[in-house]
């Protein structure tokens, strides 16, 4: 069943695409700089198409099945998004073209900024960050620049709840901050007393995910944000879970100062097997001038006859660029399409159904799976994948067994504050039938765990490969292959 690599399929002299002959006189090549060997494979177009088609068959995908991967918002990626991003008028524009030749792009970016502002309640948006993690980095660097601009250099610490995504502490550290861990309370909220105790004039800010990674709405969020503000800090909202809040509440209204938005989670741009993402950052008016530039603005108002002229604005205290050009424009087109097709009412329905679906699954699994912080959840919930009376069965085994039933497993072993965590996020795009089938399988697996645990230990049974030896991979570290005749290392 293993598919050969392109190197194994290679045959000297083959070529998958032909180019025209040069129509200009040939220039001399600088021989001392010219490369002597180019050890790349040689395939025909059909070789290539079959190879990658075969590889695609080895993948699980949203188009192929239910993907309840907590924290990742694996909702359906509408096909029209793909068409729109490939409209020639968008696809074939160069990022450095004069602005008067790309008014269509700039109008779209401007409108998207406006939509995101309206949805989140913030006053300014940059579309530049390439992914959520880069949005976080942007946000924390803004916190840093803000304090610095006020001559406030004592602030060296960032508060991060123990339920946070790993990116939060990693981002704080790479931005030069010391990370202070804040525990969660019994209801699964960030512990407000611990926040109070940690807040002093050395705190630069708090990174808070709401709903948090337990899938729970932070019940004291307004109060928590106030405490941080009173201590002179800023609150960064990790927008990973924004899907639960569309039209439900606006993070800026709750007191957040900054937030990143994952276009690839909330606004349906595809995950692409691990990217490209897109992580716009929204801020309050007080922080607008710190945004990475340029951002799109109207530079000449329009009137009845002339549309407005869009151009770029460079914030005057900008933290600087976080990537080249203007961000992942192709992702912006997809998100714009999605928002345009939903409107206010549609977006609210997205959040409502995402939350309805999660609570429905929670209700169906409760009792069989232990849910340590059991209250009405938002878009996801976290159960324990372990039972005292089924020793030796772990969350990992449940995850692998789900594959045999053709479901993608939930996120496991995160958040760290739940034992053997199974983090389940169904999203709004799934039908009741799919949810029921998944719940039935989860209940069946629980039964198997108690009666035939080996079925789980040896799972998956029906996948292209079985459990892979990760220790061997890390030890032998084979990270690439070569053409057969040139075996090196």
């Amino acid at each position: 069943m293993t598919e050969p690599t392109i190197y194994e399929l290679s045959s000297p002299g083959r070529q998958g695409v032909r180019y025209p002959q040069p129509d200009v006189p040939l220039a001399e090549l600088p021989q001392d700089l010219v490369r002597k060997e180019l050890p790349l494979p040689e395939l025909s177009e059909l070789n290539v198409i079959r190879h990658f088609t075969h590889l695609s068959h080895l993948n699980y995908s949203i188009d192929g099945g239910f993907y309840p991967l907590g924290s990742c918002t694996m909702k359906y990626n509408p096909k029209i998004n793909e068409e729109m991003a490939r409209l020639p008028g968008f696809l074939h524009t160069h990022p450095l073209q004069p602005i008067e030749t790309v008014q269509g792009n700039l109008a779209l970016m401007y409108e998207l900024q406006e939509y995101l502002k309206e949805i989140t309640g913030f006053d300014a948006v940059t579309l530049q960050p390439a992914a959520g993690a880069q949005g976080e980095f942007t946000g924390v660097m803004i916190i840093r620049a803000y304090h610095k601009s006020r001559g406030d250099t004592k602030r060296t610490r960032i508060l991060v709840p123990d339920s946070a995504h790993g990116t939060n502490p990693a981002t704080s550290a790479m931005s030069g901050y010391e990370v202070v861990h804040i525990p969660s309370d019994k209801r699964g909220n960030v512990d407000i007393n611990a926040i109070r105790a940690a807040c002093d004039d050395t705190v630069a800010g708090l990174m808070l995910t709401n709903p948090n990674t337990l899938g729970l709405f932070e019940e004291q969020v307004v109060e928590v944000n106030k405490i941080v503000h009173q201590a002179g800090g800023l609150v960064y909202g990790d927008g990973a879970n924004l899907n639960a809040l569309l039209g439900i509440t606006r993070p800026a209204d709750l007191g957040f100062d900054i937030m990143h938005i994952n276009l690839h989670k909330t606004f349906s741009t595809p995950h692409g097997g691990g990217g490209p993402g897109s992580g716009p950052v929204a801020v309050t008016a007080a922080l607008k001038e710190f945004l990475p530039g340029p951002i799109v603005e109207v530079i000449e108002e329009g009137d009845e006859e002339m549309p407005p002229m869009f151009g770029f604005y460079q914030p005057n205290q900008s933290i600087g660029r976080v990537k080249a050009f203007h961000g992942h424009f192709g992702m912006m087109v997809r998100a714009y399409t999605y928002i345009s097709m939903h409107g206010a009412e549609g977006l609210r329905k997205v959040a409502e159904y995402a939350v309805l679906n999660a609570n429905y699954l929670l209700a169906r699994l409760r009792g069989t799976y232990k849910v340590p912080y059991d209250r009405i959840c938002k878009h996801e919930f976290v159960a324990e994948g372990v039972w005292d009376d089924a020793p030796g069965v772990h969350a990992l085994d449940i995850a692998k067994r789900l594959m045999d039933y053709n479901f993608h497993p939930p996120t496991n072993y995160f958040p760290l504050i739940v034992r053997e965590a199974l983090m389940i996020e169904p999203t709004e795009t799934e039908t009741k039938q799919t949810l029921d089938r998944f719940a039935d399988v989860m209940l069946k697996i629980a039964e198997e765990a108690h009666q035939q645990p080996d079925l789980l230990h040896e799972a998956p049974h029906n996948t292209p490969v079985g459990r892979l030896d990760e220790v061997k991979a890390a030890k032998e570290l084979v990270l690439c292959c070569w053409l057969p005749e040139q075996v090196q290392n």
Partner: protein
Amino acid sequence: MYTPHTDSEREEMLKVIGVPSIESLFEDVPAEHRFPKLNLPEPLSEMEVTAQLQELSSINETTQDLICFLGAGAYNHYVPAAVDTILRRGEFYTAYTPYQPEISQGTLQAIFEYQSLIANLTGMDASNASHYDGATATAEAAVMAYHHFRGKRTRIVVSPAVNPQYRAVVRTYMAGYETVEITGDQQINPFHAPEDLLPLIDTNTSLVIVQYPDFFGRVRDYTNLAQIVHEAGALLAVVINPLALALFKSPGEMGADIACGEGQPLGIPLSYGGPYLGIFATKKEYVRKMAGRLVGETTDKQGRRGYVLTLTAREQHIRREKATSNICTNQGLMALAATVYMSLLGKTGLRQVAELCYHKAHFTAQQINQIPGFEVDLSTPFFHEFVVKCPDSVEAINEYLLDNGILGGYDLGNDYPSLKNHMLIAVTEKNTREDIEILCEALKEYSHD
């Protein structure tokens, strides 16, 4: 549409949950901030949104409407149809990061092949699964070098001939490391020789960053530079254009420690600047220090070959604040595009495209150099981009060119005060001889007017 429940299904579900209404699922949201009225346009149907976006996109003038000589980090290459055919497979683009290897072998093997192609092309030992773009890959090189020396070497020497946007991103990424000093690009002449960097390199230097071909298109041999950088105990990062490496000596051959750069020339459409592909490859001894995803080969219990994400203990979801980078995605689908592109072109095709670019660019440069008032330095080897000294402001010339259906070159005065009236022109395999003649004709007319 994308929320499929019928009214009766919704009621059944609410009953199972044990709440009377959907609204009651949101009672934990502060009442005064609950259910805001969002001021967004009325929702459009698929048919309407298509019409709207077709209209919006048609306002643009594209590289298909205009003859394009604009590059400066993003290039107008031909993308064979087979590339997008593969990218459009839902099994690839609607999959997540391959955390569950048993059902992600497609993505994992494709990344493994990508890593192989990039390692071979750059002449390095190993490539990661990619970064966001060329700029952030370059910044990650700076971060890696900083951590490699445990923060004890605080100087980074950057050539002014590195893409200005990349240098800006390096500065942003390093802003949190307060002791780090970034030097070189403000001190020396943009058209410097590699040797001009030597006086800046000392035992406090962690990394030297140069570009190949550099931002001005010039191809310089960094073999000697690499040697001197290593004598100072520092690392050398070479920012590459992967297509140029089909024709010119690899950074590995020159002794670079890191090869990073923009993968967009490898089958990725211009798409107004993104999404693109950040290439990052290094030597064996630094593999464990490299940020970003890595795929490794292994076997399952039955001995079948398979692939997994490996060395994940370096990453943020495990190491949290001890991780050296917060990166969690790569540019998966863009890496796939580059893999399909390189597989299709193979060793002969890639070299052919690189040579077409080279010859056409040289023809263009020679022609422009003959136009009164315009001057091109033909003495330093270059790939497919070159600097033209113009008789007037680049802005004025470009405006004239645009009126003649030509997208002119990049205005170097934007980034280099000393290079007012200097234009950076890029030529690719897509530019025909006729295109080039039209450009030269227009420049001639401009200099006459």
